[in-house]
């Protein structure tokens, strides 16, 4: 490449010098307030991208650490899942050998609450379902947080009145998941209790309470709530067990009716997104065999 002529070099040097000097003097002619304002604005413009870059790099590093943690967690959960799957297969095998039949889970029909009947607290709900299944009396009604009630009266094939667990007449057979102690769930207008649990039966605070399936109308294993208080007295025949439900009865909007045929979600998989995966069970062929 040819070198620039010396004269051109000198002109370039002087041009740069002149421009820099003129710019400097131009800035010095500003009022002090202008200098402060513009100086602060320029500094902000210079520093902000550096701060962004710094924050971006920090976020990236944090993301990498978080990713590593999640990978480790996923690996642990995969192991747990494999272990549980082996357990489930073993259980099914044992049940089959013992002569038990496939447990019918029922099928969920999504619906929405049209009205709530309130007597201090909501005790009944009028619901409308979407789907081909016809409603029948005593079909369980659940939410993503657990059992909410049962169909009390069918008004139409997709319209029904639901008796919520909070109605004082409602009685549902439940069991403590950890120990299989069974009792009857009732609501006294303020709190849930599990009645008819003899003194000495193992129940403790924090135990999960699920449906027992003994009543014949509600499938076994639906979540009801957790034990919040246990009172044992030698002078009493039964323990007083208080339970808290995770269902927010005053905010019931979307519900699911457990119809009597098929596995969960058969027929409308993918159309209901608000139900957590924990409630999704693998579809099973329930055509063979009767209920336990």
């Amino acid at each position, binding site marked *: 490449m040819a070198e620039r002529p010396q004269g051109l070099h000198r002109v370039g040097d002087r041009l740069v*010098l002149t421009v820099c000097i003129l710019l*400097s*003097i*131009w800035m010095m002619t500003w009022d002090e307030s202008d200098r402060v304002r513009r100086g602060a604005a320029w500094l902000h413009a210079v520093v902000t991208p550096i701060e962004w870059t710094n924050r971006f790099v920090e976020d990236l590093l944090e993301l990498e650490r978080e990713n590593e943690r999640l990978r480790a967690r996923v690996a642990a959960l995969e192991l747990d899942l494999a272990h549980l799957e082996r357990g489930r297969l073993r259980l099914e095998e044992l049940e089959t050998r013992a002569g038990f039949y496939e447990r019918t889970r029922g099928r969920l029909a999504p619906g929405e609450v049209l009205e709530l009947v309130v007597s201090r607290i909501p005790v009944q709900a009028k619901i409308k379902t979407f789907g081909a299944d016809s409603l029948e009396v005593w079909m369980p009604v659940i939410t993503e947080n657990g059992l909410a009630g049962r169909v009390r009266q069918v008004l139409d094939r997709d319209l029904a009145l639901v008796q919520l667990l909070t109605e004082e007449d409602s009685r549902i057979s439940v069991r403590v998941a950890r120990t299989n102690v069974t009792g009857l769930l009732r609501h006294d207008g303020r709190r849930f209790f599990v009645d008819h649990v003899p003194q000495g039966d193992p129940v403790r605070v924090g135990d999960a309470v699920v449906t027992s399936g003994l009543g014949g109308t509600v499938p076994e294993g639906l979540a009801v709530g957790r034990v919040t208080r246990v009172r044992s007295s030698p002078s009493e025949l039964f323990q007083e067990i208080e339970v808290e439900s995770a269902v927010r009865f005053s905010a019931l909007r979307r519900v699911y009716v457990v119809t009597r045929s098929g596995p969960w979600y058969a027929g409308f998989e993918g159309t209901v997104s608000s139900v957590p995966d924990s409630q999704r069970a693998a579809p099973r062929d329930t055509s063979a065999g009767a209920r336990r």
Partner: protein
Amino acid sequence: MTGMRLMVAVAITLVAQLAFVPRISIAGITPDFVVLLVVLVALRAGPSGGAALGFLVGLLQGMLAPETLGLDALAKTLVGWAVGKLSSSLAIEGPAFYFGLVAMSVLAHDLVYLVGLTQLDVARFLGLFVTHSIPAAVYTGLVSLLIGMIARAVTGGVLNRTAEVRRG
């Protein structure tokens, strides 16, 4: 010096001037690393490069103390240009030369800066120049010697390479 290396050098120098230099002050006198950088770059890049870098770092320093925005840029532009110009016409080398060059650059810079800052208030100008600028020029010159020795020991010499460029 590539653009990226120059930017890194500017950033490190500004940070050092703000954060490190106050720690090595002697009786309130601090070395001026920014002028030192302008001198080093002007020796390599010539008058236009020195003036442009002087303007740039002066502007950045002015943003940090915007009351004197423009004054820093003007002083460092002139120093950068003058050192760049001088580098192509002088054939002297050695530590004493660099000490003198850096010290004179600091004095020239402060001369311009203080004239603008004091607005030709002679008493104030002389007071600041004698009590601050001259000691700071000596201090900066000594620091430049120290840095030169360290650089020579570590990499073969920044100042030597600068001299080679000048000879070339």
